[in-house]
């Protein structure tokens, strides 16, 4: 299924079967959306291990609430909404995971040698994204890492498109400042 495309016929069939309690059909849905959901939660909470747990939690919630799902919007977006909520829960429980002030300082203080190391740079980017306010971070993650359109993000997060644009704009401005040394290298 391409990005932004609605649920395919095959997927709708799986959803209908899963609604009737077919666990195998739901397992197939999990298999299809596992990577995206784990990725969204990981970008939100910054810990792959926590992300897998939260992604599993998100799928369990999806199973429980599947009878209420209406295929007006793609299943992927619906699951992403649950995943972002699961990520917020993780963030609430794990507030100590990221020290925002420290992160912004380190990103600015990184030395020239460290900048040359791609892995190190990627890590700095990850930390800079984590230092964003959660509301802006989830919009940025859905746009930059999952490729959702403004409309899809608005539907997923249940916010107006104008809010999507302003949060995205804020996140990008913030990242451009905190990652300025790395952007200059590109």
């Amino acid at each position, binding site marked *: 299924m391409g990005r932004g495309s609605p649920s395919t016929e095959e997927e709708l069939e799986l959803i209908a079967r899963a609604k009737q*309690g077919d*666990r195998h059909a*739901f*397992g197939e849905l*999990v*298999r299809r959306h*596992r*990577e995206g959901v*784990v*990725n969204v939660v*990981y970008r939100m909470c*910054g*810990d*792959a*291990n926590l992300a*897998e*747990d939260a992604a*599993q*939690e998100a799928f*369990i*919630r999806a*199973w*429980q*609430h599947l*009878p*209420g799902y209406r295929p007006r919007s793609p299943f992927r977006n619906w699951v992403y*909404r649950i995943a972002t*909520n*699961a990520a*917020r*829960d993780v963030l609430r429980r794990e507030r100590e*995971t*990221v*020290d925002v002030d*420290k*992160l912004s*300082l*380190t990103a600015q203080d990184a030395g020239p040698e460290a900048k040359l190391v791609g*892995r190190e*740079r*990627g*890590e700095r*980017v*990850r*930390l800079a*994204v*984590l230092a964003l306010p959660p509301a802006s971070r989830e919009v940025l993650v859905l746009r*930059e*890492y999952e490729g959702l*359109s*403004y409309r899809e993000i608005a539907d997923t997060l*249940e916010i107006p498109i104008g809010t999507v*644009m302003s949060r*995205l704009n804020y996140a*990008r401005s913030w*990242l*451009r400042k905190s*990652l300025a040394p790395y*952007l200059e290298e*590109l």
Partner: protein
Amino acid sequence: MTEHATDWLGVPSEWRRLEKDVGAYHDGELRGRRLRQVEAHLAECPTCRAELERLRALATLLQESPAPADLMPPDRFVAQVGLRLPRRSERTVWQKGLEIGWRVAPLGLLGAWAFAETVFFVAGVVLIALRVGIGGEFLPRFRWDALQSAHPAWLVQMVSLLGLDLSGASESILQVLSGWGWGVTLHLVTLVVVGLLYFSWLASWWARRQHQRMQPASMSASTPTPTPTAGSRADGRADGRDRYPRPQS
């Protein structure tokens, strides 16, 4: 973009709007005329072209952030989710019947209201006909006198207080008032009851709709649903946090 050429040229807000559209252009959100306008603007505005390049550079840099590594294989992930799935309660026939009843309740109320209105209307027509002497022959047992004497006590008392006697014109007025009072009272009571029931149904429908819309959002406010294996993982790790260090500054 403070040094944009439009700042000192005093070029109208249209250009300023185009500046803001550079982000939407970068994200592929523009179509048709708007897209052509922004493309034309970019062709002649170096500041906005530079802004677009910065957005592209940021997007490239963001992709350098590593994807989560050392994840469990997909099959294992699916199996673990499957193990943690709770039983979903099936709705009974009784619950389904209630659901259908709830959905058709407005139709029932509408029918009840229409029935009551019809009864009032027919009764009014019959009473007026009898009052003017039409159709009495079809109701041989109807006793107009009995109906005439059936004034409510409060109305009789009020007439007495006003110093009127129950004969002649006063009696006629009393009959009219008595019949009208009961009719209107019954009518109003029916309307209020049907209206209250209908608005109660509307309120419950709205609350239910809100609940359905907010389901995923409301879940964020709650603690995770306990499941048979919640808090433990099928791969034997208590929570697996030993695999990944916390982000270090």
